[in-house]
């Protein structure tokens, strides 16, 4: 492994920060940003591993992840907007109609 290990630790750290942000976040926009952070942490891991193995698989994966992340955020923001229209808030603790 060698040089790649450092990058993998970095990616694990960033991923954990993203997870933490999603779990404690109250604002949906902040949660969205944390999900992006998680996906980009994975991108670092893919890049590092791709260089380590001297294959292009990981590099190609990063392109797919970036484009999927963009689509996901577009839909996510649209959902946040419909939520805001119905609740006049983007905080998660205000949207509590469904229970049981």
């Amino acid at each position: 492994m060698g040089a790649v290990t450092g990058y993998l630790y970095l990616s694990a750290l960033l991923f954990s920060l993203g997870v933490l942000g999603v779990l404690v976040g109250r604002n949906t926009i902040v949660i969205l940003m944390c999900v992006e952070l998680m996906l980009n942490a994975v991108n670092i891991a893919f890049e590092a591993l791709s260089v380590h193995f001297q294959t292009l698989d990981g590099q190609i994966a990063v392109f797919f992840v970036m484009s999927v992340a963009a689509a996901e955020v577009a839909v996510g923001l649209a959902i946040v907007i419909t939520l805001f229209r119905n609740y006049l808030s983007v905080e998660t603790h205000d949207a509590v109609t469904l229970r049981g």
Partner: protein
Amino acid sequence: MSTIDIIAAAPLFCMTFGILALLVLDLFRIDALPFPRLWWGVGICGATAFLFWPFLSMNETAFSGMMAVDTFTFAFALMILGGSAVTFMLSDELLEGQRVEPSADLDLLVLFSALGGIMMVAATHMMLLFVGFELLSICVYVLTGSARNQRASSEGALKYFILGAFSSAFLLYGMALVYGATGSMYYSGIAAHIGEPSMMLLIGIGLMIFGFGFKVSLVPFHFWTPDVYQGAPTSMSGFMAVVVKAAAFGAFFRLMASGFGSVSASWSAMVAVLAVLSMTIGNVIALRQTSVKRMLAYSSIAHAGYAMVGFLALGEGGGAAVVFYMLVYSLMTLAAFGVVLVVSSGTEAQYDQDSIESLQGLGWTHPLLGIAMTVAMLSLAGVPPLGGFIGKFYLFSAAVRAGYTSIAVVAALNSVISLYYYLRVVVVMYFSGERQLSWEPPRVLVFGPRLALILLTTGTLYMGIFSSRYYETAQIAVRSLMQL
């Protein structure tokens, strides 16, 4: 492109071009066309299913090993397409009552997510799996929120979106670690380089199980399920409970069997715990639900637990049992959601009318709805001559053969518990109080839902009586998977 690539691409191209044609037709007022909108969706699903037929007797890979052309793909593609076609039939003119503006957009999203599901189950490369997974998920987030001015719908969409995006990040991280441990993204490459499982590989497999666990709603990753199924328009809840779950189970099974099959000893304990938790907690919480949609959501969690039992017995017929069980589960669950959809679509005020009490007298006033619901409930509970019983029988006997007798016993006990809340629905429909509805009855049952309910009910009965042929096909499907 070789011949096999053309055969593999034909159904996917057919579907994509069908969707694009629908998009263009929508610009020119599709309502003015000779057929109702929904039959276009059914037609596209039918044509695609027809093009999948050559897959039945093949066992090859296309696109330099990225996509499997085999019986397993055929079986799950047909489930996904059938589920989507039934969703179209059920939403015939009914969505208006659910305050969803009828537009071709929803049809397009249903078809795109079905396409994503097919890509998932056919994938033998982790990137294709991820792209299919996301195509399916992103479309379903939008479908959940499609009743835009309903609070419940947008709240359900938000919960589904946040947890869905969160779980797919875990799935992706798992992929990166598996790639790191084996140096390959192909399932065959993973299986070839897996060797003695390293820590990195085990964490990767764990994270991928976590990601799929969210999608198929296993306990403890199930918290979104009841809220989302209740908040979404009912036809979309049925679509989620059936098509999304079948696609996720198909892809999950292919990955575990042909990618990580040789190290099954290292993940079977985790799967066993998830299966037992899902069955037990799903059934126990379903006991005290008053909303039919929430009850069906917990029941779908419990059924995901039953299906996971098959993962424990990979070599002992567990795989074939999973394939067969998903087929039967699709039929009976769609029928149950179909009845709820018709009941709750009468008037605008009925949007939230999904309490079990609102079904009182339904069996007498609407015989077809009553029979369809009764068959679905009895089959979900696993009462003998019906499909659900045979499915459970195959699953549990495979578990016993593989030496997991205690888990089979827990599963059988759970079936007994579930009998209580399924039978309660039947009792409310036929034997409690007045033989008439306490609310304004749904409008005359139009052709689409009528046809769908008849097909699903006969299918559930048929699977119970003539199961052997389909089970043999499932066995062939799983055998082809193990050879990859």
